[in-house]
């Protein structure tokens, strides 16, 4: 087997050094009933070529986003990732290293995390950020749990514009811990309803902007209402490129900002791995979940970086930890940081402007299709449309023209009664020809 270096002679010699006769002697502690002499009912080993062939055959049964016109968003976005990013993250020293528990020989990873934390804090307009969460949805749940620790209150209000999957993940975790979650009815543009739901028991309010329907929302007034009631304001963003154009969560009064970082550097990957961005005000830092990298000096006074404030974490604090998270999304955070460094502020602002311009072009083209109604009043790169005859049916129909029209809202939340609502997104990868083909195909269907 090509990954196993020991030869039969090695094995025999090593058993001799250990002082046993057979490998079975080393498994003597396993109960006899559980020791299996025979191989399990699975295929035998295979060469690299055979394995690659099988996986290529599976991959070939999928239709990649880049294969033609493609308009899906809803929490994951198709963006161009510079070739440099994928090259650097495949360097052995980044790819095959562990969590930087020995900082003297992990300064590469640690300095990257420090750069990542600084970039995330800047993007979200907040003071501190952690070294990443698994993804945006788990970051959202962790933020609600953190608000509970900070405020010592047990209820949370989730906006009806929050991505239904994010709401479901948060409800799953928070319910188990005994929190009471008020999830407001799904509505395209009703973030103001959040204010009415705030009570003196509210630990936090969670508002997404742009929300799941693409609506860009000013949360300033919601944040003021939350703060007046002693609650924390959590702002969720699923499209990180929007930070290059829109007012940041921090500027609008967020105490905690959570975002999905997939758009920068990571790629679609059928849903994972992604990278959760998590930032907050400095005064809450000791209640944060996840790893934190901090600056310090070595024995010769040279600047260096270490994992710090680990007394919050499970390996030190055990059942009193702020979270159970251990493994995070380090390599995706590296990809994010490299891509962000390549963009710089100028590139990010240009990229965000292009995304918005493409979405405007898409909106104009679809608005001109008879029967199509644009539902999102103000948006970044994604919006909702009403399609007569049903969103899921429209997506299926347009596949005949090799157009992937978007995400039917009913797929995210079948109970919402929004079966004719389709979420569509455009990015810098969307071409004028893609948009024209989409509008043309839609016209053929709705007329």
């Amino acid at each position: 087997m090509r990954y196993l270096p020991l030869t039969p002679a090695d094995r025999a010699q090593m058993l001799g050094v250990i002082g046993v006769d057979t490998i079975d002697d080393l498994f003597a502690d396993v109960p006899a009933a559980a020791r299996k002499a025979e191989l399990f009912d699975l295929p035998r080993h295979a060469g690299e070529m055979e394995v690659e062939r099988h996986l290529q055959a599976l991959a070939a049964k999928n239709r990649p986003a880049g294969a033609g016109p493609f308009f899906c968003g809803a929490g994951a976005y198709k963006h161009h990732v510079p070739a440099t990013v994928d090259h650097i993250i495949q360097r052995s020293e980044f790819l095959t290293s562990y969590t930087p528990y020995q900082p003297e020989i992990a300064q590469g990873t640690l300095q990257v995390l420090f750069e990542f934390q600084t970039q995330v804090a800047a993007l979200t307009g907040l003071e501190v950020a952690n070294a990443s969460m698994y993804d945006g949805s788990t970051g959202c749940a962790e933020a609600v749990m953190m608000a509970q620790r900070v405020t010592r209150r047990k209820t949370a209000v989730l906006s009806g514009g929050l991505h239904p999957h994010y709401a479901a993940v948060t409800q799953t975790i928070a319910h188990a811990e005994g929190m009471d979650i008020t999830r407001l009815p799904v509505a395209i543009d009703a973030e103001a309803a959040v204010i009415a739901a705030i009570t003196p028991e509210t630990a936090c309010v969670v508002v997404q902007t742009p929300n799941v329907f693409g609506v860009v929302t000013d949360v300033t007034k919601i944040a003021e209402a939350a703060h007046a009631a002693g609650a924390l304001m959590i702002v969720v963003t699923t499209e990180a490129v929007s930070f290059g154009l829109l007012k940041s969560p921090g500027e609008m009064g967020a105490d905690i900002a959570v975002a999905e970082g997939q758009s920068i550097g990571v790629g679609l990957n059928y849903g994972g791995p992604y990278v959760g961005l998590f930032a907050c005000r400095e005064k809450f830092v000791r209640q944060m979940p996840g790893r934190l990298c901090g600056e310090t000096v070595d024995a010769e006074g040279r600047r260096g970086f270490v994992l710090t404030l680990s007394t919050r974490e499970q390996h030190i604090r055990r059942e009193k930890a702020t979270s159970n998270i251990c493994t995070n999304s380090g390599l995706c955070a590296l990809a994010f940081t490299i891509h962000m460094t390549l963009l710089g502020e100028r590139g990010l602002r240009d990229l965000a402007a292009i995304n918005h311009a493409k979405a405007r072009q898409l909106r104009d083209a679809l608005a001109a299709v008879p029967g199509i109604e644009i539902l999102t009043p103000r948006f970044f790169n994604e919006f909702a449309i009403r399609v007569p005859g049903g969103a899921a049916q429209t997506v299926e129909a347009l596949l005949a023209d090799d157009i992937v029209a978007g995400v039917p809202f009913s797929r995210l939340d079948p109970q919402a009664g929004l079966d004719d609502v389709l979420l569509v997104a455009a990015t810098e990868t969307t071409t004028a020809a893609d948009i024209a083909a989409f509008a043309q195909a839609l016209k053929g269907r709705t007329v």
Partner: protein
Amino acid sequence: MTMLNVGRPTQPQTAVPVAHASLTGARGLLQDEALIFELGGWDKTGVDLEPAEQDASDLAGLIREAAIGLPGLSEPEAMRHYVRLSQKNHAIDLALYPLGSCTMKHNPRLNEKAARLPGFADLHPMAPISTVQGALQLMDELAHWLKTLTAMPAVALSPKAGAHGELCGLLAIKAAHEAKGQGHRRLVLVPTSAHGTNPATAAFVGYDVAEIAQTEDGRVDLADLEAKLTTDVAAIMVTNPNTCGLFERDVIEIGRLTHAVGAYFYCDGANFNAIVGRVRPGDLGVDAMHINLHKTFSTPHGGGGPGAGPVVLSEALAPFAPAPWVVSGADGFKLVEETVDEAAQGFGRMVAFQGQMGMFVRAYAYMLSHGSDGLRQVAEDAVLNANYIKARLSGVMSAAFPDGPCMHEALFDDHWLEGTDVTTLDFAKAMIDEGFHPMTMYFPLVVHGAMLIEPTETESKQELDRFCDALIALAHAAKAGDVDRFKGAPYLAPLRRLDETLAARKPKLTWRPELTTVAPAPLAAE
């Protein structure tokens, strides 16, 4: 002296005995690399994007006006910056990486290549089901392998890491108890030697945690377990092989006692590598176990993630699995994304989408490569390598549990360092100067000054011998009173020992202009 005819010496002159500090902070090829925020790239970019029309009429005035504070670099500068940083990391591709409980094994590059096929990497999680049939088939095949290897009837693929898998398992257990009217059970029992994630997870979902004592020979104390197993216990969480690197000989009895009081047996599968292909957790009475794909199935650790932590579930817990899951039918594969219609008992959702697809592809490539025979050999070689290290080092270091074999990792305590003034930490740091990453230190907590060594199966005998020779030489140096070699270590790493107390006392978690002498220029007016 030997010289070329142009006067260039071709032999080294008399060696200078003391290492010189460089004038620039560099150490030979290792550059002293500044932060991106100090490289002056406030108006630079490494991408070529055509400026778009600026029309804010659809943004309701929510424009970001102030500078964000993000520097940029051209492509060559960015490449050099990150490659320079990479060279300050140890990596499994450089040398043995013996972190106990972490399973740092070789990461095959075929797996990287496969995960980058556009059919996987460029696939949107909400793309129409008819366009992702290959992805669903891969998830279905991966699930079949995981179920067969563990003799468990169901698997939830979506958890994103080991601790996330623990969370999934405990949520399923909680839902199962509630369905049986047993929601009053408040207690989870965890051995003292457990990973920190176990008690943290139990507390995170609202359980109280009680510890189970350990026997002299490093296993669960059955008498103590039995005394604590009441009808108030929801579950026990036991790692097997345990964190001392030992197989729980009484595991079947542990399961029987647990089930007798109506509690569930959660097994932490972090150490599955020791038994994969040879022993099936389903034959041991386990109800739920997470499998760290980034350990046993070799998806790269990436400096701390991403991982993946699918959870196999027993018949009793399977109905409570979270959404989504894959089902196959006559017209292909489907994804069940809501638990409301088809299985009302599902406890909810762990993540936004389907889980770590990129890791699924890599882990599946690894499984296909090994096959049933190769995986069995993985467990055997992993255990053989650990026992070989234990045998070779026991002459100079004190094994925590000297009697009998260990499984995939060898645990030593610091008894052998008594009287040397060298601590476990000092010894670990001195290993860095010898070119090795230290073992896991001070864990498990049940052993004083613990040193937990896990070599994995992908080390050759030559590398194991090189490692053992280095540790034996260091042990002799410690016992011979060469204390400076340890107290000041590492001397030869990119940095010397770091001040962790300073970092925690005055946390500097981001680069800020007011905390540095280098001021950022505001972004030039547009």
